[in-house]
């Protein structure tokens, strides 16, 4: 296969429906591709124009319209369009316009027809789908995902290869340059009849003879005191287990386990196309948000980032469906949120130039606690170096804050209703001022004021001088535990929101008009639970921000009666999971995810558990009143 076809194939092979194609079909599709470029704002196809090819978006973004001119869909990198028209009558029904500069790969109609005929999944995808989210979500619903996914999906780079006549030192240098832990060994092929012979992109024959890993270099060279000039051939094992690129991820894992190996060269027919490591599979299985984070750092504009929202949601749904814990999901979603913020800051810094003085972007709320879910406001602030001079520096930071905040809003993290954003001047201050804020809140804890500032007591750095935020965390941890008045005020506030349990353990449902007969699980369960945990955590001088980690610190300090922290931890996990499952269901039903749980729709067991969790919260609130009493009561 020629190099340019490989470029095309390697991109298409990552996206549905091409990711499910057998290698020969994928090769055929990539080999037939024609390319076309469209400037942002130009029409790609107009109504009643004949359609001769399936369009695949290699880069850029397009919008699809209905006849009445209404926006029907917005598509980005890796999406396809034109399939409906191709299947029907070969005339454009839905006009398409480029909204960014867009490069399309066009797959001619005859090839498209063959793909549909030869691959049932491909045909299903083009007939039924439109949105990648839907297919990703459906894909994640199949629990045999590892069986359906082909191993080439896990390949991120070409294999590093070297002739076996080279020395160990040359191999080590090559591995270091490429930052890999293994290298494949080759020798020139001479037409011998072996299934290890392949022809490279330039038509040359090679024989794949083995693989050398870091471990081999350690065991066979360094430990033996052998020369760095030893030829690789002399330390090669000679036997090599490989896998075909269209085998399943599951098969790759079994092959590794059966043979007790951690690396598996992946072949496309006989040509090596990558090396899969056991950790790649583990990562794929447990946390595909890693890929998402990677994707975030590849995006080059706010618009391109914003288009990742469906993928963020799909990844969330997948984690929920796979039975991950709320802590895992919260951690994964938080790393997505942090990565988005970092990328937005990079964009802003690229535009505005380097910051005039050191600074740190600080987050509060769920991102600081690492328990972000799918619907969440942005809560952020900025800690500036003490050399901050508003006249000289504030233009820069105000604009930076604005760009980051607008970017977050565009990416589905709406502006904070309470105004906790670095765009507001009080929350864009030098470190010394922040220290004064916290000292003041702790020393003179007016409950009313604390109500608004308690959000700042979950805090973490996201970008920049992390030590600024660490200094604040230190200050809080040191002062809060010695300030009974502050803890009492915080405790009193933590009792403000009661769990929705009436007498005889019946649910008290919301009657606020919009969400009748529901329970706002965040407001009535998770948030008060976090409030309770925060008071205890500050009371024992914990520097942790995450609820579960705080509970460990509280337990370690013996601040609660035996068994209480376990119960709280269990209740927090359950409430969080009910919320996340509810939100995942909303997403699957194409509804905007919210926090309104309908007890009617909860299973009997879950209803029972829910009541128990609320009861634990209620008891914890009562204990808090006793443990941190307000003076004079």
């Amino acid at each position, binding site marked *: 296969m020629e190099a*340019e076809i490989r470029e095309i194939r390697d991109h298409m092979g990552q996206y549905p429906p091409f990711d499910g194609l057998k290698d020969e079909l994928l090769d055929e599709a990539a080999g037939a591709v024609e390319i*076309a*470029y469209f400037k942002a704002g130009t029409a790609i196809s107009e109504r009643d124009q004949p359609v001769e090819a399936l369009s695949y978006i290699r880069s850029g973004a397009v919008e699809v319209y209905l006849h009445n001119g209404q926006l029907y869909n917005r598509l980005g990198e890796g999406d396809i369009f034109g399939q409906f028209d191709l299947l029907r009558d070969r005339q454009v029904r839905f006009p398409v316009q480029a909204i960014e500069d867009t490069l399309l790969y066009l797959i001619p109609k005859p090839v498209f027809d063959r793909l549909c005929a030869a691959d049932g999944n491909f045909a299903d995808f083009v007939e039924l789908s439109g949105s990648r989210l839907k297919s990703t979500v459906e894909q994640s619903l199949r629990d045999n995902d590892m069986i359906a996914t082909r191993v080439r999906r896990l390949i991120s780079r070409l294999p590093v290869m070297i002739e076996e006549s080279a020395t160990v030192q040359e191999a080590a240098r090559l591995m270091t340059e490429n930052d890999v832990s293994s290298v494949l060994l080759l020798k*020139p092929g001479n037409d011998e009849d072996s299934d290890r012979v392949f022809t490279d*992109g330039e038509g*040359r024959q090679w024989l794949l003879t083995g693989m050398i890993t870091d471990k081999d270099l350690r065991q066979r060279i360094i430990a033996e005191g052998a020369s760095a000039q030893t030829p690789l051939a002399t330390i090669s094992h000679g036997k090599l287990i490989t896998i075909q690129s269209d085998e399943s991820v599951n098969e790759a894992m079994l092959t590794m386990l059966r043979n007790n190996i951690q690396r598996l060269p992946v072949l496309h027919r006989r040509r090596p196309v990558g090396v899969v490591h056991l950790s790649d599979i583990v990562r794929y299985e447990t946390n595909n948000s890693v890929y998402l984070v990677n994707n975030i750092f590849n995006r080059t504009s706010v618009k391109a980032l914003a288009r990742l929202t469906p993928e963020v949601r799909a990844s969330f749904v997948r984690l929920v469906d796979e039975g991950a814990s709320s802590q895992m999901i919260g951690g994964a979603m938080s790393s997505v949120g942090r990565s988005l913020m970092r990328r937005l800051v990079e964009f802003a810094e690229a535009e505005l130039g380097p910051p005039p003085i050191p600074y740190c972007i600080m987050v509060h709320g769920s991102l600081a606690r690492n328990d972000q879910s799918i619907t969440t406001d942005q809560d952020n602030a900025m800690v500036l170096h003490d050399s901050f001079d508003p006249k000289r520096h504030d233009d820069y930071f105000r604009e930076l804050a604005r760009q980051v905040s607008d970017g977050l809003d565009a990416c589905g993290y709406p502006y904070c209703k309470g105004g906790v954003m670095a765009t507001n001047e009080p929350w864009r201050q030098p470190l010394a001022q922040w220290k004064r804020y916290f000292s003041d809140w702790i020393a003179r804890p007016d409950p009313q004021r604390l109500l608004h500032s308690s959000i700042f007591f979950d805090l973490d750095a996201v970008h920049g001088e992390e030590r600024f935020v660490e200094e604040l965390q230190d200050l809080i941890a040191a002062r809060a535990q010695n300030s009974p008045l502050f803890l009492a005020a915080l405790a009193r506030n933590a009792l403000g929101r009661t769990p929705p349990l009436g007498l005889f353990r019946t649910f008290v449902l919301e009657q606020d008009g919009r969400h009748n007969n529901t329970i706002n699980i965040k407001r009535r369960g998770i948030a008060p639970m976090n409030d309770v945990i925060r008071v205890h955590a500050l009371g024992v001088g914990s520097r942790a921000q995450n609820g579960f980690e705080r509970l460990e610190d509280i337990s370690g300090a013996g601040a609660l009666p035996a068994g209480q922290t376990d119960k709280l931890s269990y209740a927090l996990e359950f409430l969080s999971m009910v919320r996340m499952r509810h939100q995942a269901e909303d997403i699957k039903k194409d509804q905007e995810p919210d926090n309104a749980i309908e007890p009617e729709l909860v299973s009997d067991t879950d209803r029972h558990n829910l009541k128990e969790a609320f009861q634990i919260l209620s008891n914890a609130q009562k204990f808090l009143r006793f443990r941190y009493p307000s003076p004079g009561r």
Partner: protein
Amino acid sequence: MAPGKQEQAEAPGWPEYFARQAEACRTPALKHFYETGLPGEQRPIEDIPLMALDFETTGLDPREHAIVSIGMVPFDLRVIRPSAGRYWVVKPPRPLREESIAFHRITHSEVEHAPPIAAILDEVLAELAGRLAVVHYRNIERPFLDAAVLATRGEPCLFPLIDTMALEARWERQGRLQGFKRLFGIEPSSIRLADSRGRYGLPHYSSHHAKVDAMATAELFQAQVARHFSPDTPVSELWI
């Protein structure tokens, strides 16, 4: 000889040169190449069959260095067709130097089995005939092809081409704004292929390979026309 100097002076145009060479050339492939002729100078660029062309060479001087590989991809303003393109590895008259091997990732044994340039020139010329060449950086493909034809056929081979790098320089290196930037010591933006492509939102291609670069050049030219020119721009405003 007309071209070469033609870039500055009001020398006889390309059509005259082609007509003259079609008469004068004795090598059949060259004769055919010139006879196929050129599009009229006023023809709009959208009607012109184009050929993106990329050579990898052992160095920059056509008198001293040689062609190692050739990639070409036919296209027009509407569509690029990689599958209809061609790719050759060529055996240079002198052995490859180590550093150029590192750059191209084309190795000794590969070159050993490759044909010499003389053996494929007719095919190269046949592919090029009737298509206007598009390259990124004009000082490689045309002079090296000319040198190779002259050396093996004893006759020159020159033709107009579109240089996407020169086009990029029109916007990125000239004009008053750029002058100001220079004045203030602001680095001009890079007009290398990959950097130029980035300005049009074109993707990054991972391999260094003559055919991939030809495809990348074709995409860049489509993008440049989409952004800066009308599709009915006369071809003579673009070729050099």
